[in-house]
């Protein structure tokens, strides 16, 4: 009772302060202009120094980064040579050869089913005429993913071994994952040169953090007995790592690999803006001429790549008894396909007359909906806007930063300790100090509402799919699609039906952020101990009681992690929402990009990161409390 009373009192205070204090303490509402931190100027000056002057004596910082990009350039050129451009006077691999090779690899990894699935994914790309672009994209993914996995894993290993390093790196990972890519695009371009390599680097920065986190977590989860055993048989440190720890953490590590692949493919659009070309460029170009069919086809080619790569890499993680002869099969394929390609041009490059295209079909579908249902949609949209979105926005923007900082500080303190409270309150004050409070609140409003809707959709679907294996397969396919299909593909039709503005942005955010809401709910429920459910049933619980009293409670930590990831995903969509005209931090970052103002962009990006960190820490603390109350051991992870 006392507990509830304290919360009520604090909420009341907060409300009273927000509603009444404006005339008395105007500075608590609008950060005084004179005191805005000139952080943008500092950061600009720093990047300028870093880019032009920073030197290690023998060579400058820029020469170092240029060296790094020259090193990455080598395998990249090799990959494009093999896949898309050809080299030494030889043509690139023919489409037939690649399809068969991928199917062989699928067979090696997961048998006939996987062979069919992965072969069909690549065939789909050829049939819809996306081959050349898809191979360009594939080449850069094939370079970015191993770098991301290796880099992420070594950071994770180091963090596991040295706790001090872990503490130092956690905030860096948060920043890497939450600062919108647009914010550091210009410095990356200057340091690494314009072109595919810079795009690969930006992709790695964005896609690597989950690998590091998951590595750390997976290593921590290795049972103590195994470690003891390793010590007993006298493993050296190196043997301990590579022979004991890494193999036993494999399942966890593969989740990381999956995330690196998904996130790398997610960057395809932005990478294409800085010279990576490929499918991302096709999507952008198609949508600029409002050719929805072409955009959708290129978009689904990205999805097909993602699914084939992901399923193969997942299957490779499981040990199977493998017959020999795959290498010979591969070499034979290369030989035969090479020979055929010389004889028949249709084998080398997929003949245009065999290509399918949806043509204007999708454009017509959108036009039909537009002509027949626009008024209905408009009515629904207006009702939502006027009754929900606008009031929430007004409410949040009117809040005083000082009150919010104190309130969040209190929440942090109650959930864990004064240190969390101080961190959260401090970050809130910093956001206000950059003078971006209004835009930050618009961001909170847009992402907040989207997260609520995504959870409302995601939870029931996750609950339903968790127990039905066949349904789960389809749901998984759907959420993988949502996660990798470039949002531009459905954003432009959404603009046609809902006009530019917050509502359209919300649709895009929800569509993307619903994936983790579903995924983690289902994973959590699937992980509930079957004995506990049996026990519940024996005690005569109804299905509803089993769900609400046992399963959902026990799955709470995973669901909280899902909430955390839903928020992270929503925030990472800010880059996209800026493109349909919202006035949030995403727009701030985008404006900075167009003015090549790296300081302003990074300040906006940091404000986004601070919001993400506040949400992450508070939810993490709440989840830890929930776990403690339920008496569940073990650790949950951010990823």
């Amino acid at each position: 009772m006392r507990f509830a009373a304290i919360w009520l009192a604090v909420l009341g205070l907060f409300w009273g302060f927000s509603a009444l204090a404006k005339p008395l303490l105007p500075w608590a509402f609008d950060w005084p202009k004179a005191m805005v931190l000139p952080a943008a100027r500092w950061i600009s000056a720093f990047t300028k120094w870093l880019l032009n002057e920073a030197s290690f004596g023998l060579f400058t910082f820029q020469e170092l980064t240029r060296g790094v990009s020259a090193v990455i350039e080598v395998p990249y050129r090799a990959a494009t040579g093999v896949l898309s451009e050809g080299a030494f006077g030889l043509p690139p691999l023919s489409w037939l050869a690649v399809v068969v090779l991928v199917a062989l690899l699928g067979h090696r990894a997961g048998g006939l089913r996987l062979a069919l699935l992965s072969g069909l994914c690549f065939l789909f790309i050829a049939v819809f005429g996306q081959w050349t672009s898809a191979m360009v994209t594939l080449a850069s993914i094939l370079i970015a993913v191993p770098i991301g996995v290796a880099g992420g894993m070594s950071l994770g290993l180091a963090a596991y071994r040295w706790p001090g390093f872990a503490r130092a790196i956690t905030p860096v990972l948060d920043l890497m994952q939450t600062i919108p890519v647009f914010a550091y695009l210009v410095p990356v371009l200057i340091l690494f040169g314009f072109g595919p390599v810079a795009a690969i680097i930006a992709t790695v920065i964005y896609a690597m953090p989950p690998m590091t986190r998951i590595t750390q977590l997976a290593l921590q989860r290795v049972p103590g007995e195994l470690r003891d055993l390793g010590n007993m048989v006298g493993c050296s440190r190196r043997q301990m790592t590579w022979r004991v720890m890494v193999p036993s953490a494999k399942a966890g590590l593969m989740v990381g690999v999956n995330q690196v692949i998904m996130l790398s493919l997610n960057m395809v659009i932005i990478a294409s803006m800085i010279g990576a070309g490929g499918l991302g460029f096709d999507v952008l170009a198609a949508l600029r001429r409002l050719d929805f069919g072409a955009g959708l086809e290129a978009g689904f080619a990205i999805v097909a790549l993602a699914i084939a790569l992901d399923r193969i890499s997942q299957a490779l993680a499981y040990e199977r008894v493998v017959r020999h002869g795959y290498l010979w099969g591969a070499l034979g394929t290369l030989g035969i396909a090479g020979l055929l390609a010389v004889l028949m041009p249709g084998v080398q490059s997929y003949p245009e007359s065999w290509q399918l295209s949806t043509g204007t079909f999708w454009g017509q579908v959108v036009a039909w909906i537009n002509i027949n249902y626009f008024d209905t949609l408009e009515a629904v949209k207006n009702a939502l806007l006027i009754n929900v979105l606008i009031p929430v926005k007004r409410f949040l923007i009117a809040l005083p930063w000082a009150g919010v900082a104190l309130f969040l500080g209190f929440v942090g303190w109650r959930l864990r300790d004064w240190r969390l409270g101080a961190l959260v309150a401090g970050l809130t004050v910093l956001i206000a100090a950059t003078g971006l409070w209004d835009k930050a609140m618009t961001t909170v409003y847009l992402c907040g509402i989207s997260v609520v809707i995504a959870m409302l959709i995601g939870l029931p679907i996750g609950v339903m799919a968790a127990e039905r294996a066949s349904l789960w397969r389809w749901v998984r396919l759907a959420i993988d699609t949502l996660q990798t299909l470039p949002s531009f593909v459905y954003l432009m039709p959404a603009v046609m039906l809902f006009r530019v503005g917050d509502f359209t942005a919300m649709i895009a955010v929800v569509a993307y952020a619903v994936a983790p809401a579903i995924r983690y709910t289902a994973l959590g429920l699937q992980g509930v101990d079957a004995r506990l459910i049996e026990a519940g049933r024996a005690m005569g619980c109804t299905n509803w009681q089993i769900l609400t009293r046992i399963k959902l409670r026990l799955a709470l930590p995973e669901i909280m992690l899902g909430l955390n990831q839903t928020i992270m995903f929503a925030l990472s969509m800010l880059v996209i929402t800026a493109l349909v005209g919202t006035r949030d931090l995403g727009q701030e970052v985008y404006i900075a990009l167009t003015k090549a103002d790296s300081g302003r962009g990074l300040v906006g990006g940091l404000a986004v990161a601070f919001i993400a960190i506040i949400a992450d820490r508070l939810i993490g603390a709440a989840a830890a409390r929930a776990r403690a109350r339920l008496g569940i051991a073990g650790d949950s992870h951010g990823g």
Partner: protein
Amino acid sequence: MKINQGFRLAISALALAAAMPALAQESSDPIKLTLHDWTGQLITTQLMGSVLQKAGYNVEYVQADYLAQFAGLESGDLHLAMEIWETTGREAMDAATGTGKVVNLGPTGMQAKEEWWYPSYMVEQCPGLPNWEALKEPACAEAFSTAETAPKGRYLGGPVTWGGFDEERIAALDLPFEVIHAGTDAALFAELESAVQRKAPVILWVYAPHWAPAKFEGDWVAFPEYTADCYNDASWGLNPNAAYDCGKPFGDIWKVGWAGMAEKWPKAEAAVKAFTIDNAEMGAMITEVDLNGASVDAVVADWMTKNEARWSGWIN
């Protein structure tokens, strides 16, 4: 972008055979031209690229963002951007040329036009159009309104990054309109397409050369004509107390290149400077690609055969 490999090979082979002498002492490193995501720019760039190939240069196309590319042009990673619009790229271009590492290689000959635009069927509801004063009528403004802006009209402006001074223009001319910014070019034209399909009211920022004014019937609003004074001097024009009481400026579309070009490929730079094309030609090619479904390669090849005399003048 599917560039016809065979066609390109053939061109390079021809070029090598025909024009080796031009290369005599110039670098054979590839000249990197940037491609953006709108058709007109793809055409302009590939025209220039084809001409340079004919002159014996090694040419490479790099896909790059319109604004992010300046970082690459400054460092010499990229060499040539064929379409920087006075109206949208001026600030970034000035910042880049200010460093001394990027140079303006002159106008392309095309004129960027941008202005408020409406589809023809709106004349029924606003009979005074295209004269801007028709927009002052409350009935007319209301015809353009939506639930969020009523009774004011809703004017769909370009992305905030394009600038354009529409808020100022509305205030200075006392128009009963509100500006809603689209976030991107694609969103802007998605709304236009949507409205035209339904014959619904819409008034928005359109620019040319672009496929939209070719595809849809409509007209530009005629504001008092732009002069530099109108933007700088409040006392100019109808409203003595405010600037921006006029239409938007026309402007050149510029060619911009890496400053090192002059030294590394002097003749190529001269050819780029000589390159010109006009709005009508470009408009016809954009229409051919975006509305009639021809490929950029085919349109470029066609232009090259028809205009041989012109482009051979640029490379000699």
